[in-house]
């Protein structure tokens, strides 16, 4: 514990250098600004802003990314409350009560409880990450390829089959991602797979191109086709921004309960902030002293889900940093940012790049403070961003997001692939196939394949290695149960 504290102090000494504070500040502001834009979720925000960091040193770049990651979530909450268009599934619970509060002229307290709740949950969760990460590493250092493979299968199962409305559609999305991950040169043998002689495909498909295609191009095509001719209604920011004494009394227990719900969901590779936000909403609804207010704009219904979202997103940094396993589309893009610098997150990262990791963790604390300071006074500016007319907004989104995909390799082929992914995203969105599993499958698939083949190389091709090693076997067993049991439940419910 003392050692962790030492490392964290060292991290602060890195994060608090003027340049790194500046990168953090720029990240927080850009993240909030882009995150506020309707139709832009955190995953797209991170993907769009990736090219800005190409020339930075890794520590500065990742500190900026941490700021973007958090800023995008804060910004998304503002949009959700004032516009009732949740940018991602984790914001749906907030939208339920938050928009109703705004309609009743209580937008100020709704935004305040969401910002302060995010700060409280984010800070507690960062503290937990700080304490938990060294412990996970102790265990992870003992993991071999079989254990890693099992954990990745577990992550695949949770992000595709457990979350979402349909197991089969989640798995379909995952397998599309896995297929895209196969394209290119096989890292073990150097053979090209499914590249069809296109040299640009030999390097594989970049996760940023897929994310921008699905989240920006697909989304723009969808919104243009199905809701560009609708009137938008922005709730005005009327009355006081401040929360009354009663608002505080109702908010803080919700923040703490939500942190306790959200963090575990993020930190075991159980992916996604969607389940904890709904769990928190349901909990607050059951415990509230003002049940009649639910469905009309109850402050607990905003405070809880927002805090749960933040705690879970922060918790997701534990598997990302210590095991290299992303559990959300946003974390998948962060992983690709690491990989762009030739850094593979995992237990060894804490030893080989301890400056970078602890600087990053320290910058999370700083980022949370910056966001709290920025968001409450500046919320008026973010509200103005919301008023940008739709035609110009989507024009801008496509200009910036295609730039993000193009500047990776300055390749027209990437732009063609981008449009194909856009069409794919349109179809998936229209017919209710989740897109996040595809993004995670693309980045995690090749890593899982490598671990699988390493495990078999060690065991001389004996497949029983996955069932005789206790950790790998139990993780695989839990994955199988998670995959199969809900199917029976669903069947039973129908009968």
């Amino acid at each position, binding site marked *: 514990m003392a050692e962790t504290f030492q490392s964290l102090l060292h991290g602060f000494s890195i994060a608090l250098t003027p340049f790194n504070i500046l990168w953090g500040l720029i990240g927080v502001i850009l993240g909030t600004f882009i995150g506020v834009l309707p139709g832009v979720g955190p995953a797209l925000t991170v993907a769009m802003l990736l*090219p800005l960091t*190409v*020339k930075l040193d890794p520590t500065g770049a990742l500190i900026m990314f941490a700021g973007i990651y958090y800023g995008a979530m804060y910004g998304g909450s503002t949009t959700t409350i004032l516009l009732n268009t949740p940018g991602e599934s984790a914001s749906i619970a907030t939208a339920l009560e938050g928009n109703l509060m705004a309609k009743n002229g209580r937008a100020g307290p709704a935004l305040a409880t969401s910002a302060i709740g995010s700060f409280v949950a984010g800070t507690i969760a960062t503290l937990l990450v700080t304490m938990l990460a060294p412990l996970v590493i102790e265990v992870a250092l003992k993991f071999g390829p079989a254990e890693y493979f099992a954990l990745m299968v577990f992550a695949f199962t949770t992000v595709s089959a457990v979350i979402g*409305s*349909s197991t*089969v*559609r989640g*798995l*379909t999305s995952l*397998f*599309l991602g*896995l297929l895209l991950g*196969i394209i290119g040169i*096989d890292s*073990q*043998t150097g*053979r090209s*797979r*499914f590249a069809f002689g296109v040299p640009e495909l030999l390097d594989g498909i970049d996760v940023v191109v897929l994310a921008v295609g699905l989240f920006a*191009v697909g989304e*723009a*095509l969808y919104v*243009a*086709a*199905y*809701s*560009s*001719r*609708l009137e938008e209604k922005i709730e005005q920011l009327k009355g006081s921004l401040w929360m009354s004494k009663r608002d505080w009394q109702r908010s803080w227990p919700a923040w703490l309960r939500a942190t306790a719900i959200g963090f575990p969901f993020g930190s075991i590779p159980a992916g996604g902030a969607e389940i904890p936000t709904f769990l928190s909403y349901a909990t607050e609804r059951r415990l509230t002293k003002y049940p009649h207010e639910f469905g009309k704009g109850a402050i607990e219904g905003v405070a809880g889900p927002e805090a749960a979202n933040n705690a879970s997103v922060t918790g997701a940094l534990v598997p990302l940093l210590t095991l290299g396993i992303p559990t959300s589309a946003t974390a998948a893009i962060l992983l690709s940012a690491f990989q762009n610098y030739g850094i593979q997150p995992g237990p060894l990262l804490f030893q080989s790049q301890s400056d970078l990791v602890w600087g990053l963790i320290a910058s999370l604390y700083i980022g949370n403070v910056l966001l709290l300071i920025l968001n409450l006074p500046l919320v008026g500016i973010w509200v103005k961003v919301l008023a940008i*007319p*739709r*035609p*110009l907004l*989507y*024009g*801008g989104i*496509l*200009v*910036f997001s*295609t*730039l993000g995909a193009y*500047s990776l390799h*300055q390749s*027209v082929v990437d*732009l063609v692939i*981008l*449009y194909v992914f*856009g069409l794919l995203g349109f*179809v998936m969105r*229209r*017919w*209710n196939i989740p897109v996040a599993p595809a993004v995670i499958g693309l980045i995690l*698939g090749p890593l899982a394949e490598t671990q*699988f*083949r*390493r495990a*078999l*190389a060690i065991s*001389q*091709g004996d497949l029983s290695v996955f069932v005789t090693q206790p950790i790998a076997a139990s993780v695989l067993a839990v994955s199988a149960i998670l995959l199969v049991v809900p199917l029976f439940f669903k069947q039973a419910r129908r009968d």
Partner: protein
Amino acid sequence: MKAKPAELTISLAVLVLGIAVAVGTTQLSGAGGYARVGPNAAPAVVAAGLVLLGLWLLYEALSGGWRNSSPDEPEALGEHPFHLGAFLWVSVGLFAQILLIHRAGFVLAQAVLFACVARGFGSTRIARDLAIGLAIALAVFLFFVKFLNVNLPAGWLRPILGSAGI
């Protein structure tokens, strides 16, 4: 109840994709060294998965429709019917960008993309949109080339933009 054509099409597409991957996998050699699994193991798993998922989707589509799916009519989600013009304008913008970016350069390609997308979203002020798109693209170009040292194609504007860009 009749199966929905879109669900049938997507289910079949997943199935056909799985079969195609399976065929492609047989073209990859299987030498795997010590691991005894070569570069074709993962594609084989993915092919099998896609075929099974395609069959599963097809079964759902034929037995009352995909489970827990959104309603088929956009109106039920508070949306309007498919607007072909909007969809096409956004597509035209992206095609124009693909064709223009290495010829006319980044700034002009992005300006045209911006104006086409705005048109798709119902804007009728094409000159204004082009001007805004041009301003944004120019600012981004200069920021990337001068400040971030990332090269972007200058294209037809090279005489004006000077040596900046490639």
